[in-house]
Every structure is written in structure tokens, then in C-alpha cells.
């Protein structure tokens, strides 16, 4: 239906672009290669502060790759190469003088499958705080605070210091992972298909949580689930074959998409 050659020359279709002043993250002409295979083509987009941006697109479209280049997680992949800039609060995180570890301490991440450490619930949430040198009663307060904000506190308050994070249910584990990510108060939270391994009820709980988190954090969420994108996000990016095809306010993308590929995808007539 669509060839890479055509798409490579494609200019992203934008509706109500985010002004520079409102952007927490400003991606400028980002291209990325895994070895010789190019995964992202010249992507430029801004992620607005205190809003939820969803990235949608078919499998292999590069949505996770784009997400992972926002906190330099792609650095862990051998043979990865990046061109372009990702400005985080005006600083290019790919500047050689920037320490990727410092970048990741500012940006939280939640993964596709819940991945708690084989440690107690407390130690899971405390991990990032300990890395920053938080100790004693402040550590304890912030762990409890994070568990509360991740809507897990009521369920685990009697046992959070003793029980292993691995003993929780899938949905609870994912909320634990969210608590772990937000405990260090990262201004930006990246979520890579956070509900794809969960049942509908657990998914609902996570979605409610995302809407609450928006008050304090900027969220970028990759999702396969278009209803989810429609429910939780303010803006939506549609990607295909490593190209950012269209971006704009979520209601525009879902009701009046401008690009035929976007329309084909959201109406389910795609790939």
C-alpha cells in the first residue's frame, strides 16, 4: 500500500503545531540507525508540557524507537547511530558532553511488560531515590508518596516492606513500576505500551492513573490500542515505516485526519 521511497520524501502533516515555548521536548530532524538499517527518518516534533502525547502506528513503525531515543535507552543497543537533536528543556541530550545516565535520571520510563526488581515493594520504589542519595525518613516518605500517587498504596500498605514486588498481580506490578518511575519526580514520563500485558480492569486503572499523572508530569505513551490513545492523550503522533506521517490534537487525528495513511490506519484498513 505504501512504499518507503514515497514516505522518505514525506513532510509530516501537522495540525496546531506545538509552539516552542510550550515544548518540554523538542525533537529536531532525528534519524536513527540500528547498524545499517535505518529505523527513524528525519523526525521533527515537539512534546508539550503537562500533556499526554500518544504515539501510534503499525508494528515496526519505529514508535518504540522514537520513545527510547527520548531518554537515550537506545544507547544500550550495540551498533546504534543517531543524527539530529533531541532538546530537553533546551539542552540537546545527544550532545557529547551530556551524560546519558543524567538524562535517564530526569526521565522516567515504564515498559511493556511489568519488570519489577526481585526486591521488596519498598526497595523497588526506593531504587531510583537511593541512586540519587536519598536516605532515612525522607526516603520512606517519598516511597509512600509514590505508591499513593500510583494508586497502589491502599493495596500494599500492610506488607510493602516485606513482600517481593514479584508477588503482586500483573496490574499491581505495572502500578509498582509506575511508582518506581515517578518516585524520583521525573518531569517527563515515557510509557512503552504499558497496558499491553494487562487485562481490561488493570488497563482501566492504569489509564485513570495516566490522566491523573498529567497534572504533574509530561507523558509520552506508545500504544497499539487506538481507543487507549483516544481516551488518554491530548495529542497523537502517527508513524509508519520510521516516518512521522501526521501529528496533531488527538481529536483531529481520530476524527479528521488529513493524511490518507492516517485515515486508513485509524479506520482499521491498514496493513
Amino acid at each position, binding site marked *: 500500500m505504501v512504499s518507503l521511497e514515497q514516505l522518505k520524501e514525506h513532510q509530516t502533516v501537522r495540525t496546531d503545531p506545538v509552539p516552542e515555548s510550550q515544548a518540554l521536548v523538542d525533537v529536531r530532524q532525528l534519524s536513527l540507525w540500528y547498524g545499517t538499517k535505518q529505523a527513524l527518518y528525519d523526525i521533527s516534533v515537539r512534546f508539550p508540557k503537562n500533556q499526554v502525547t500518544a504515539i501510534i502506528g503499525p508494528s515496526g513503525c519505529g514508535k518504540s524507537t522514537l520513545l527510547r531515543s527520548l531518554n537515550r*535507552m537506545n544507547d544500550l543497543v550495540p551498533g546504534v547511530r543517531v543524527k539530529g537533536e533531541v532538546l530537553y528543556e533546551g539542552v540537546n541530550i545527544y550532545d557529547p558532553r551530556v551524560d546519558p*545516565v543524567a538524562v535517564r535520571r530526569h526521565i522516567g520510563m515504564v515498559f511493556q*511488560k511489568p*519488570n519489577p526488581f*526481585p526486591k521488596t515493594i519498598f526497595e523497588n520504589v526506593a*531504587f531510583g531515590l537511593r541512586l540519587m542519595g536519598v536516605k532515612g525518613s525522607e526516603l520512606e516518605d517519598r516511597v509512600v508518596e509514590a505508591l499513593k500517587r500510583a494508586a497502589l498504596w491502599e493495596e500494599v500498605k500492610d506488607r510493602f516492606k516485606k513482600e517481593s514486588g514479584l508477588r503482586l498481580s500483573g496490574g499491581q506490578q505495572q502500578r509498582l513500576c509506575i511508582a518506581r*518511575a515517578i518516585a524520583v519526580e521525573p518531569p517527563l514520563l515515557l510509557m512503552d505500551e504499558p497496558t499491553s500485558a494487562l487485562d481490561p480492569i488493570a488497563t482501566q486503572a492504569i489509564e485513570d492513573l495516566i490522566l491523573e499523572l498529567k497534572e504533574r508530569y509530561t507523558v509520552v505513551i506508545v500504544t497499539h490500542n487506538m481507543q487507549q490513545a483516544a481516551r488518554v492523550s491530548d495529542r497523537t503522533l502517527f508513524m509508519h515505516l520510521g516516518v512521522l506521517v501526521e501529528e496533531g490534537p488527538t481529536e483531529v487525528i481520530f476524527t479528521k485526519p488529513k493524511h490518507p495513511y492516517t485515515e486508513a490506519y485509524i479506520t482499521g484498513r491498514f496493513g
Partner: protein
Amino acid sequence: MEILKQRPSRHPVERLTLLVLLLLSSVTLLTTLGVILSLLGDVVQFFRRVPLAEFLFAPEWTPLFAEPRYGIAPLLAGTFLVTAIALFVAVPLGLALAVYVSEYLPSDKRARVLGVLELFGGIPTVVFGYFALLFVTPLLQKVIPGLSLFNPLSAGLVMGFAILPYVSNVAADAMQSVPRSIREAAYALGARPYEVALKVVLPAALSGVIAAIILAASRAIGETMIVAIAAGQRPTLTLDPRETIATMTSYIVQAATGDQPVGSTAYYALFAVGFTLFLLTLALNVLAQYIVERYRERYE
């Protein structure tokens, strides 16, 4: 329904295969049982002649003296001493190697390094034994006055290298089995590689790492050639690594190659020591199994 009336039948070749496999695998089991039973007979003979209290509490092991004593303590002390020295070398080096290989080496080099280590573990221990006696001991004698020609220090140090691959490879395997997703979680929180290795992967692999150490200890206890050659064959109740000692294994070598008449107490003593050795290593292996089962993390 016709199809429901058919009885489930095994294909003849399937039956034959099963039978052959069963027979072959029972050979190993039966051999082990046979060894234990034949040992037991001689062990019983020994304890008819020597009281258990003598065996457990007498401070000397002198089966060939005019007035023989049969206290296992000096042999246990010798074994313990050499094993402790070997672990003192093998555990820190092996764990450091495991962390490096599992967490720092790219995956293509990882297999190669583990392979080389396995090769290292395949060096005949008799070679290690002579290396200890002819190279390490003279070297140590220059810095440690009063070091006997045969001593547990040199034997233990060299044995530490001989059992190093058991620690490093088993521990590296355990660390490799920690899911990638857990490492990613730590990196995403801003952990540095050493923090990921030491604060996340190593604790997550702890049961496997402890099992690796126990297995290495059990190897060290059962190791024979290095101690027989380099540690000496004089049972001494001491924990001084400079003195000549004997371990359980080196006593067995000495007795088995010596000329105790069959049926003498000294002859049966051989089996009593062998059985003690067997029980000790069995206990350690069971302990290792238990720790792996009990403390293994289940991620799914």
C-alpha cells in the same frame, strides 16, 4: 462412534525406545547405588573394630602406628584448611570474572571467554599439583619463613585457580538468566553499569551464585591430586597453613597405593574416610540444590 472404541496404543518403536532409554539410565543409578552399598559393607566392618566416638573425637589419625588411632579430625581439618584457602582465591576472582563476563563483555566475546575458562577447568589436576609443588611452594618459601615443602597454603592457592571456572561459569550463567527487562528498568532509572551489575543483577542471581560457590567448595573438598602432591601426607590437627597436613582425599590415595593387608583395620579405615567424604559432598550438593530451588526468583 468407531473412533472412540479404539484403545490408546503405543507405537511399538515408541515402546522399544522407552525401554532402552529406561535401561540405560538405570545403569547410572544402579552403579551409584552399588558403590554406596559396597562402601557401606566395609564401613560397617570398620565401625565394628573402631568405636564411633574414637572416629569422631580422637585427635590423631595414625592407622599404621603400633598403637593406631583413628580420629578423623586431622583429616577434616586438612580438608577444611585447603578448601578454605582455595575458596578464598576462587570466590572473589570467580565472582569478579562472572560480573565482567556477564555484564561488561559484548555477547559474542562472552561465549569465547567462558569457553576458555572451561578449557582451563579441563587441565588435569596433576599438572596443577606439580605446579604447586615445584613452582609455587619455592616461591612462597622465599617470603614465608618456616613453610614446609609440602603445605596446604600452596596447594590451596593453586586449587583456587583449578576450581575458579566452577565459580565463574556457574555464576555467570546465573547472572545471564536474569531477564534483560530488569536490567533495562535499572538503566532507565539512571543506574550506571556497575550499579546495574552489583545492585540489581547480582542480588537477583544470588541463589545461583551461592550454588556456584557451594559446588566449587564441593569440588575443592573432593579434589585429590593437587593435595596429594603438594599438601603432604601427614595428618596433623592444625589450622596453620605452613605445616604439612593430609586431607581425606590424600589419605585415601596414600592408603590405596600403600600395602595395608586386605581385611586389616587400616584397610577398612580407607572406606570410613571415603564414606565421610561422600556424605560431606552429598550434603553440600543437596544444600546447593535446596538454595537454588528455594530462593530462585520466578519472573513470570
